[in-house]
């Protein structure tokens, strides 16, 4: 792992993808940082009063990829697999609609990191057979609650927004509520399962 200064009030920790979750929880637990921002293979930490790089290095020194941490919360999200792109996904993957749904619901995903929009959580663990690129032309409007897949990720659009991912379902579960005590249903480190329901 490598810790580099990132501006006057932050540092970027580079690691392997399987260390991100452990790093995230160790940095959060320390209580030293104003922001802890995990991503694909980095964790950004920010502070309000300076923390020397050497101190961060010693904080994370014991983290190995094999470290077993308490697994994150398991969040189940009911989803109706009625997405506009489900047929196209089936065609692209050579699977039937039913098989796409079965594979997706049988996978436990990891909420890895957020980006793009408030509460938009990139979930990893998508089985290889479902990994297809983003749509060539993004949609101008994707409704809140749309379940989508693209590249190695699955995610739910928390708010109405533009979007280029393949839509496979919808949920009525509120993913982001700015006025709630915990605004985002999912936090990095959570495990996620989707449960198929009919409307």
């Amino acid at each position, binding site marked *: 792992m490598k810790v580099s200064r990132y501006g006057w009030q932050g540092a970027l920790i580079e690691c392997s993808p399987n260390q991100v979750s452990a790093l995230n929880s160790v940095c959060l637990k320390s209580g030293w940082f104003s922001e802890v*921002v995990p991503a694909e293979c980095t964790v950004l930490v920010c502070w309000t009063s300076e923390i020397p790089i050497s101190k961060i290095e010693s904080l994370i020194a014991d983290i190995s990829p094999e470290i077993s941490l308490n697994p994150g919360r398991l969040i189940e999200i009911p989803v109706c697999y009625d997405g506009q792109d489900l047929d196209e996904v089936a065609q692209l993957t050579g699977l039937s609609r039913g098989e796409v749904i079965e594979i997706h619901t049988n996978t436990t995903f990891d909420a890895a*990191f957020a980006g793009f929009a408030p509460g938009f959580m990139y979930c990893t663990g998508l089985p290889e057979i479902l990994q297809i690129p983003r749509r060539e032309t993004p949609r101008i409007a994707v409704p809140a609650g749309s379940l989508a897949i693209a590249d190695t990720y699955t995610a739910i659009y928390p708010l109405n927004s533009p979007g280029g991912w393949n839509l496979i379902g919808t949920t009525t579960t509120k993913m982001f509520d700015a006025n709630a005590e915990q*605004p985002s249903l999912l936090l990095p480190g959570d495990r996620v399962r989707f449960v198929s329901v009919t409307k």
Partner: protein
Amino acid sequence: MSKVTITDVSGFITLQDVGRVGYANIAVPTSGAFDQASHHLANRIVGNFSGACGFESLRGKFEFTNDSDLVISVTGAPASVRINGREHEMFRAVFAPAGSVVNVSPGNLGMRTYLAIRGGIIGNQVMGSCSFDELSQIGTPPVKAGDQFEIEEKVSGSIGGDYLPGSVVNGFEVVELEAMPAPRWSGFSNAEILFSSEYQVTSSINRVGMRLNGPELVWNTQARLASEGVVMGAIQIPADGMPLIFGPDHPTTGGYPVVAVVSRKSLNVLAQCAPGTKVRIRNAG
């Protein structure tokens, strides 16, 4: 509780404070006043706590009436401040008796004017801040005619009697910014040109980011950079090689490499730079 009623608005006027901290991991940036120095100064002049909420006007014109006596101050980009038609100085505490018409109109220099009211303005608190975040579209919606805001009674001290002028970005002189090389600095084949060239502020500027124009920075690998966390002030280099400096409402993660990070102090200056302003970036790392 006393309140003000907005009677006329043109342009982009928002409520801002020091922003919301601790939510970057759910993709919500800090937000807050772009020019924090001017925002703090306005609060200090009227004896407010530094986190008090006030108006940020992007060269907008706005007018309000008050139902009880108020003390206000106006800082940042030069503006005309009139109370019942009479001109008052900026950078000073000004008394507005109940029933006044307070009018703030932009001048030709700088970009953002700040107005504080003694006691602080009560905005729509979302995730610990009233700031309107242009990217996430959360916080107090932009100010429009007919809006009413209550005034708090939280003060930290007495009204400042001193005249405290701020510096003004005049648009003619080259502005110097300080920055520190970022972790991806060495991934560029010509990163040093950032510190040796003159850049110009383009018209693509808002609270999310400010695009500059000048010599192209070249990322020396074709490999996709994995998305990683981004800080306020980060100078990101998108595919066209032109620097994009992230403001208070920046995306929290990004896939384009960041070459350097501008200091918060320099962001205060940048917040006042109009399109066409020439900037030089100094290596302060």
